[in-house]
């Protein structure tokens, strides 16, 4: 994907947010029964929505007029995608199943395993298990004991 296309997509999304945000302010006005000239709860948001829409239009024009378009360097995109997929699964299991420490161990171990260049090395697996266990001990001491967080 090139930077120009991504910018246009994001700007269209931003413009849409501006429109939805603006329309939502009507509800705020109805609730207080204020008229259009009043400085009510809807005044500042309404102003922001108008500025956002205007800036978005300006930025879309600027982007389209750009002569050059860089290609976005995706780098290790597979690892980013893997992280993005694994994270909601981890949070879902943590919230709905519980067993926070076990699930966090599996999640952290999996991420470290995935991120390694040489996944077959037994030494790496051992280091990974030791590292993950140590981090969990730190989490337990700092968050569980010191901050009294119940996971």
């Amino acid at each position, binding site marked *: 994907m090139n930077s120009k296309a991504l910018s246009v997509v994001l*700007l269209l999304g931003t413009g849409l947010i501006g429109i939805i945000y603006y329309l939502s302010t009507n509800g705020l006005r109805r609730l207080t029964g204020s008229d259009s000239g009043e400085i009510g709860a809807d005044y500042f948001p309404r102003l922001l929505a108008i500025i956002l829409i205007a800036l978005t239009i300006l930025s879309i024009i600027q982007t389209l007029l750009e002569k050059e378009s860089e290609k976005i360097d*995706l780098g*290790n995109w597979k690892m980013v995608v893997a992280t993005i997929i694994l994270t909601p699964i981890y949070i879902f299991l943590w919230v709905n199943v519980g067993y926070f420490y076990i699930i966090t161990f599996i999640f952290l171990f999996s991420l470290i395993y995935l991120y390694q260049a040489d996944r077959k090395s037994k030494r790496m697996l051992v280091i990974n298990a030791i590292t993950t266990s140590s*981090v969990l001990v730190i989490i337990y001491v700092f968050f569980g004991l010191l901050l009294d967080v119940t996971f």
Partner: protein
Amino acid sequence: MSFLDFDFMTLLTLSNLIAIFVGTIVGLIIGALPGLGATMAVIFLLPFTYTMEPVAAVLLLLAAFQAAEYGGSISAITLGIPGTPAAVATAQDGIPLARNESPGKALGISLNASVIGGIVGALCLIFFTEPFANFALRLSDPEFFLLGLMGLIAVASISPKGEMTKSLISVVLGLMVGTIGMDMFTGQPRFIMGQLELMEGLGIVALLIGIFAIPEILKVVKDDLHTQFASQASNLSTKLTRKDMKRIAKPIGVGSSIGTISGLLPGLGTVAAAWFSYIAAKKLSKSPETFGKGNPEGIAAPESANNASVGGALIPLFALGIPGSVGIAVVMSAFIVHGIQPGPRIFTKDPTLTYGILYGFLLTTLALYIIGRLLTPLFARVLVVPNSFLMPIVYVIAIIGGFSATNRYFDIWLSLILGLISLLFVLSRFSIAAFVMAFVLSPVIEVGLRRSLLISGGGYSIFLTRPISLLLLIIIILMLMTPVFRKFGERRKRKKLESNSR
């Protein structure tokens, strides 16, 4: 109560000292890790501040911020990769000096300069904040609205070339997100989408972790996961001779002055401070030709500047309630968490807390010196831990940190969603810094605007009839015109070059 009446025993408590110690160590580690940075260090520690006393909480964050600024130079000198953006200036001479003489000497210069810069910033903070605040007491809502706006436009205007509109969009989005929750005037819920969790607005820790920490970590995963760092982990003693100190005295003076002033001006931040002072030190040096080849002055000037700018950036926070940089905006969120509103009235409302933080900031600098002297070699070795191990650990702790601040599962989901959206915005060069600043300043700006308009009966003339307002308005217009001036300047330069070549 004046700053001389402060009871130091209220500051020298065990909890405050532990907070400074822990903050310094965490700041050094995170600052030293390439890809993360001083703001990240503050965000990382923010969840821990919820259960702490306000003074200890703020000192923890300030100690981390100060230490991370020095920490950035550790990786710049031993790895050749700056840990913070401000350390890029340090790397110009830090890397050659480490190679030609010893990494320890380069680190010693960096540490001493950082500490002296930090002390200068702290002294300015102690002596100048109250007079500034007394002046600010004469200001009213129109001026506070315009000052807030000026800070945001300043942050947006230092965006990369051609991206100012995107930065302004980031500002507006930050202000919009700041309106979520209960309206301060009418108590009416706004944009909460049926979620009661949003009545008090978006959780600041969850938001910062989402928009700052998650994209930063994913960016390192994308770009630098398997980068092998070769650290120069030998000869790391940071001891300096008297001759070395004498040589760097002048650039430290230059850097500290420029740093403090840069910190005072909203939006400039540590990066600009470091580069301005590097250029100034080069101009004032007896041997400018050796800059970039390992001149100690080239390390001393930017390092003293980036630490002095932290103290400088705290002055507008205490005097006006407007943070001087994004990192300080994150520190400001610790005030918000504890229900404290920084601004000119803080000196009369809560003098013990205020002076505790001001003097405590001086202690954070001393802690940096002691811990930096003792542990720099250790931190230099931490750098060889591969990112493939480090990033998952930081990622998991960031997610858990976001949850621990409020114990709400809603906040974890919020962080994740914001993190993914922000990653796309970062790739498209929107300004996350401008977004954060705007989010933090949203209440100040909205209250200032609405109160001003209520006083004037809805007319905008109130901003033109008050002399200070008018002056601020002119500055804002000039700031917005910067890209146009820049374009004209470039065109004129190009024309001149073309006519010369003919």
